[in-house]
């Protein structure tokens, strides 16, 4: 309902909404244009072809876009903690997380999801993969689990802001940064970085590990091949841990009183 309210409110400024939707779509396209420009100069990047990079791009962008649509607003939490308006949410009979997520719900973020899906579909047409039932099932699984993992990271970042208050940019480096990272093949990065993305912040499960399986390539950095099937478990674990972090953070919240 709160989300609907914000949708109605943005619709009041129709012209502005049309522009934001359009620019949200194009903003994310430009991301991909950069990859197109790179491939206009080279044939492969880190041993990966254009279609394969497009596949990586499409899977992470769609997953990230969905997470951004659902939870993208939680990084405004720091501001609410700072100016004390969070208190309003605490007295309402609706879970705080749902309210924070719906706060200034931005329908324009559909732009990113649709753009990611377009690139994904296009890459599937271009890709030369021997499809099996498992590989086909892997596609929706990647998008769903991937967006759950991104959601978990966003909420974890928001929980951190109960203490840090105006450090929302740190979360951005994991969410937007992670999204950018996953658009490129793992072979071009330092292997320590790749390991960090597997074992510390489990972003690699969003697309790298399952995607490499779909593409029939070896998993990076000495990670065993069966990890490609782990995303549902990783996503579940992330959500659980994040829920705990969120509860703890909310319990320890002290209003600024202003």
């Amino acid at each position, binding site marked *: 309902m709160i989300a609907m309210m914000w949708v109605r409110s943005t619709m009041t400024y129709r012209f502005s909404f049309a522009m934001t939707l359009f620019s949200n779509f194009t903003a994310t396209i*430009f991301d991909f244009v950069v990859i197109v420009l790179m491939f206009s100069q080279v044939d492969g990047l*880190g041993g990966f072809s254009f279609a394969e990079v497009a596949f990586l791009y499409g899977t992470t962008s769609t997953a990230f876009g969905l997470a951004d649509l659902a939870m993208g607003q939680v990084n405004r939490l720091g501001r609410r903690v700072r100016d004390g308006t969070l208190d309003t949410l605490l007295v309402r009979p609706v879970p705080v997380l749902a309210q924070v997520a719906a706060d200034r719900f931005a329908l324009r973020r559909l732009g990113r999801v649709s753009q990611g899906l377009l690139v994904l579909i296009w890459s599937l047409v271009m890709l030369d993969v021997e499809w099996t039932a498992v590989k086909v099932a892997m596609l929706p699984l990647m998008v769903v689990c991937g967006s759950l993992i991104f959601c978990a990271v966003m909420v974890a970042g928001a929980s951190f802001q109960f203490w840090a*208050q105006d450090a929302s940019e740190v979360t951005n480096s994991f969410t937007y940064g992670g999204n950018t*990272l996953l658009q490129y093949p793992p072979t071009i990065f330092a292997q320590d970085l790749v390991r960090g993305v597997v074992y510390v912040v489990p972003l690699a499960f969003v697309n790298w590990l399952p995607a490499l399986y779909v593409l029939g390539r070896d998993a990076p950095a000495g990670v065993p091949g069966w990890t490609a099937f782990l995303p549902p478990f990783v996503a579940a674990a992330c959500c659980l841990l994040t829920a705990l972090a969120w509860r703890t953070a909310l319990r320890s919240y002290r209003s600024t009183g202003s």
Partner: protein
Amino acid sequence: MRLYAAVAAGGFRRHATYRMATAAGVFTNTVFGFILAYTYRALWDERPHLGGYDMAEALAYVWIGQALLATAGLMGGGFEDELIERIKTGDIAIDLYRPVDLQLWWFSANLGRALFHLLGRGVVPMVVGAFAFDLALPSRALTWPAFLLSVALGVTVSFAVWYLVALSAFWLMDGAGTAQIAWLAGMFFSGMLLPLNVFPGALGEVARALPWASMLQVPADVFLEKRTGWALVGAYAFQLGWAVVLLAAGRFVQSAATRRVVVQGG
């Protein structure tokens, strides 16, 4: 003049207060610097001397970009949100009463902000980048002041663009749409994602002629000593030209807005 210097100092101090946000910004710039540096390395591995840069220059370009991202407000985040908010709520009426020039006031405040971000969010990522990667650094001492002058001109052009964007709120009431388009153009046409020298054909020609080129591409080329002698003078002329044109446009729009637009009541 003293007044505007005080405003600039105020802008500097104000942003210096947000220590946590600055630390978070430094962290983010560093993370993105690493990601971009690796992708550039893969690209320049395949095609050495792409866009006239060698590997060390391409990597230096990445970190200059991270240093100037907040400084020149390539993706916004300078002053425009606040100005748009004041126009939306009608507080702008109070500003217009004041015996100061609106454009110069915001310009000074933004200059203070830019200087803080150059020091606060620019130097640390650059140093980290220089330790992690083999970067090309200026060989002549004079390149440093030449670079800083070019950055200052880039910040001026950036201000002029964002000022126009913010003033659009006088007519549209909600500046979010124009701000997003400007953000988009800033990200792509400043050369933040890929140097404009790498853009192929006509796209490259156009991108290098647009005002956004003066915010990152031109200062970076000055830093990398691609522009020296007369080419350096040409670079300054390019930046100055856009600054004058856009500031004049801002002045024109400002006078049109204050004459014709009914201020929102509050």
